[in-house]
């Protein structure tokens, strides 16, 4: 098991390096326009967000509508940190790569978001389902309103700040190459997390929380853990966002933003990280592709969503994970019992059965 896993990790790494190579070539030879690069950057952010939300929404099975709030915490934290570093002349100047500051900032953003994740998660996760949805939505809104009213988080920030204004003048030091690898690492970490005893416990709790505690799992711990991990990555995504967009307004982290990411999770398949990756890309690109239709694009977007929900209610992939290894094996004609394919099917019918039996 270890061997095959190393092998598939290597294959994945090779594929990623190839993708990255293509990316470098496309960028360096100016084949990719700024526009496309911007969208790719947003895709990376969306991917991290969607995957992070998948941990709570998909794997833990709790409807949480506060993701954007944590993203906001990460964004503001990271922005304030790089601003502070810049004004205090820490890690800036000749020879010091911006990337270093950037990485420190997004990590800090993730950590603060995670801390808030714990604080919010402990009370919130006592509730379930729709109640949790509304309570996380509420926390998200509270975070937004508080940020909005903090003077040092508006305008030029710090003592020159003014509440209600967009925080401007954030160093736009998010480099697409760096962000690409940050995204890869985030997704990989979430993947290893989900494929460990922690992930297993989280999935078990979604299946049946009473049986989970009867198996000795401390469900509060695991729920809060899942929520915290998810908040951490949301914070990281926020940090990247801040340094891409260069100015922040609290309004962009409202509950509608949270639902956008939940939509990505459901669209890609609850419980499939690769599904979230694909959905994040598709749903980020879709409104752009629909620009031609200008006024009608949001109509088209909503109709497209409804149609997908009608014809593919478990999302594009269900719980199926796309695997390069499997793909290669398939191409090479090797037969491999594809366990997760079976799993995906069961889940599809399983949810239906639940509906019937209730």
């Amino acid at each position: 098991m270890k061997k095959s896993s190393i092998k598939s990790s290597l294959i994945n790494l090779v594929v990623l390096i190839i993708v990255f190579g293509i990316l470098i070539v496309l960028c360096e030879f100016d084949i990719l326009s700024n526009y496309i690069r911007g969208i790719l950057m947003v895709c990376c952010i969306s991917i991290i967000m969607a995957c992070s939300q998948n941990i709570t929404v998909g794997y833990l099975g709790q409807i949480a509508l506060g993701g954007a709030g944590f993203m906001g915490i990460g964004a503001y934290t990271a922005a304030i940190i790089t601003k502070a570093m810049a004004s205090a002349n820490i890690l800036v100047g000749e020879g010091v790569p911006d990337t270093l500051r950037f990485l420190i900032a997004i990590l800090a953003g993730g950590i603060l978001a995670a801390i808030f994740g714990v604080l919010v998660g402990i009370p919130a996760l006592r509730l379930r389902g729709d109640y949790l949805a509304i309570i996380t939505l509420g926390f998200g809104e509270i975070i937004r309103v508080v940020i909005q009213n903090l003077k040092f988080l508006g305008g030029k920030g710090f003592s020159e700040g003014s509440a209600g204004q967009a925080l401007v003048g954030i160093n736009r030091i998010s480099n697409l190459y760096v962000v690409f690898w940050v995204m890869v690492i985030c997704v990989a970490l979430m993947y290893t997390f989900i494929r460990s005893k922690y992930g297993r416990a989280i999935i078990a709790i979604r299946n049946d929380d009473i049986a989970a505690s009867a198996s000795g799992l401390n469900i509060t711990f695991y729920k809060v853990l899942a929520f915290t991990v998810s908040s951490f990555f949301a914070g990281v995504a926020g940090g990247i966002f801040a340094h891409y967009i260069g100015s922040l307004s609290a309004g962009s982290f409202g509950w509608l933003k949270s639902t956008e990411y939940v939509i990505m999770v459901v669209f890609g398949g609850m419980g499939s990280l690769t599904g979230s990756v694909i959905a994040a890309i598709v749903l980020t690109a879709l409104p752009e592709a629909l620009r031609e239709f200008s006024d009608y694009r949001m109509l088209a977007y909503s109709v497209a969503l409804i149609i997908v929900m009608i014809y593919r209610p478990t999302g594009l992939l269900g719980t199926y994970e796309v695997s390069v290894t499997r793909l290669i094996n398939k191409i090479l004609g090797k037969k491999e019992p594809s366990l997760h394919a079976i799993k995906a099917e069961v889940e599809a019918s399983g949810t239906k059965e639940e509906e019937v039996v209730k």
Partner: protein
Amino acid sequence: GSSTNNSAADATPTAAASSDAETIKIGTISPNTGNLAAYGEAVVNGINLAVDEINAAGGVLGKQIVLETLDDKGDAVEGANAFNKLADDSNVCAVIGSVTSGVTSGLAPLANESKIVLLTPTATADTVTDADDYVFRACFKDSYQGRMAAKFAAEVLKVKKVAVLYASGDAYSAGLREAFIAAAEEFGLEVVAEESSSSTEDTDYSAQLTNIAGSDAEFLFAPYYYSSVGPYIVPQARAAGFDGVIMGADGFDGTIATMVDDKSLYNNCYFTNHYSPDDTSAAVQNFVTAYSDKYGAESLNALAALAYDAVYMLRDSIVKANSTDRTAIRDAMSGMSFSGVTGSFTLDETGTPEKSVAIIEFKDGAAIWNSTLGN
């Protein structure tokens, strides 16, 4: 000056696709969908009106203007995507947009990087044009407008005690409030009550207004948009028993279309504006008539007028530069003088107009020019 001798009826279609050499392409960004869509609508109408006029009059440098109108949904990321798309298109010589300060703040650094003019018709937050060479605007900035309101209160209305109601979550409203309060001190006004709402989209301000009515303020500064002034703020203030002056900024323009049936409620309300619709100058009258004919008076407001002027500012710059080169346009626009619907002005070194404000007063449902104030 702006060309105003054409009616909209014989305008050529703006989307006419012709070869690059024969047209001048201008990009626009505004919130055309989502909950700020009403602002986007007014701006797009204003832009279209101006472009149609210019094209009908023979275009610029002998070429027709073609617009690429993109939507930002009021969202910074969408705005950035839209901007990149326009900047990447080498045919686009300048960008008009965006409407809100939040989104425009995000576009400003991009404009500088891509070296393309970003002319915002309406983003009034002070910081928007601060740092960036390529960013200009057609409107005055919040700190100026807020100051003028205080000046009017102190010097013309001669009130002493004032109250403020603002939306802390809205850059426009919060910015104006800050400027007003700063200036209030300077002009010897006493702020006796200050209340806030979390956004400009609230519908109920009764609680705050009851408090204000309970204070001894004679004057209320409420920097909101017409969409909440007409149906909510003024009637609720009057219902709460506040009979003093209610004053706002350019966001009040358009209130006439959103007033409730009892127009007398709006008497004793003033606002600072970029222009006065009943200004008898040809520029204003032509604009008002042409706009109302084409899009109806409902969405006619300062946003539309500013957008309209922005197009003419850009036209003038292109003519002056005698080129559609992006940098040339920038150089031409920098420090330009302009006279249009929203007044005559010169751009300062940050790219913000220095212009006088028109004080408009509501009288039985009509907006009437009261006075003009300058520094």
